[in-house]
């Protein structure tokens, strides 16, 4: 086993659509922990209920890239639907799941490249595949 470095990553939609010019992705899994403290307990107690996760991905705008265009299409006139996403951290190792997009930010500054980013919520489980 070796330390993981970011350069070996990528962000895909579907199973083969590498979204071009991405430089960052993040996933934030979480678990709801309802309080189950009962009379007589000396400390608060928590249980576990539902898993959830959210994602962000960002990079440089390339309108001609079909996979970037598919993401942008949801915020323009496309059909709103889940997007199957894969977040690679090594050549054949990744997390995957369906995403409902919640936001898109495009930022242009004179003298710098135009950046684009997306945020979304996981719609279902987050799965891990490692090789």
């Amino acid at each position, binding site marked *: 086993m070796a330390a993981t470095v970011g*350069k070996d990553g990528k*962000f895909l939609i579907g199973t083969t659509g*590498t979204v*071009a010019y*991405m430089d960052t992705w993040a996933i934030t899994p979480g678990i709801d922990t309802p309080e189950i403290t009962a009379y007589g307990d000396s400390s608060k107690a928590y249980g576990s209920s539902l898993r959830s996760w959210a994602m962000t991905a960002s990079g440089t705008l390339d309108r001609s890239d079909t996979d970037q265009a598919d993401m942008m299409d949801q915020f323009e006139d496309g059909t709103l639907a889940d997007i199957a996403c894969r977040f690679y951290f090594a050549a054949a190792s990744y997390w995957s799941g369906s995403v409902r997009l919640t936001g898109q930010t495009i930022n242009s500054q004179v003298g710098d490249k135009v950046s684009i980013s997306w945020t979304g919520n996981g719609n279902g489980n987050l799965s891990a595949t490692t090789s």
Partner: protein
Amino acid sequence: MASRKAIYDAVVTALNTSTGINYVTIDVAENAWSFKDNKFPAVRMLDGEEQITRLAFPDDVSEDMESELPLEFMGYVKKNISQTDSIDLSRNTLMVDIEKALTGSTAIDDLVKDITPQERGTDRGYSDGIGWTNGVFRVLYHYNHLRP
């Protein structure tokens, strides 16, 4: 595909194409005070310290690296008996000619994402009939890490 050398070559070509510039050198050892009179106005180009960062995850993109390349130049003018222009005016004219050549070149524009003047100094010194000026252009370009 952009590369440091391709950009540098295009810059030299653009300067050589300018009617206001009679000589372009990239040789740091070449002494401007030994230039023949017909080589003025002259320009010496130097590439500065390049700052490189990753642009994107390298899989499936042709340009995954981003570089900021400072292109530094020294401009030399010489006053002779037939000239009516002052050294200061000649230096300023040369500065303008350099900027026009570099920012107006379609060949450079095809290779880089952006080229902008970053520093300009029109009065850097005068000695033995030669006045000089200097400046820096910021060049932003993208390339593939396997083809630097």
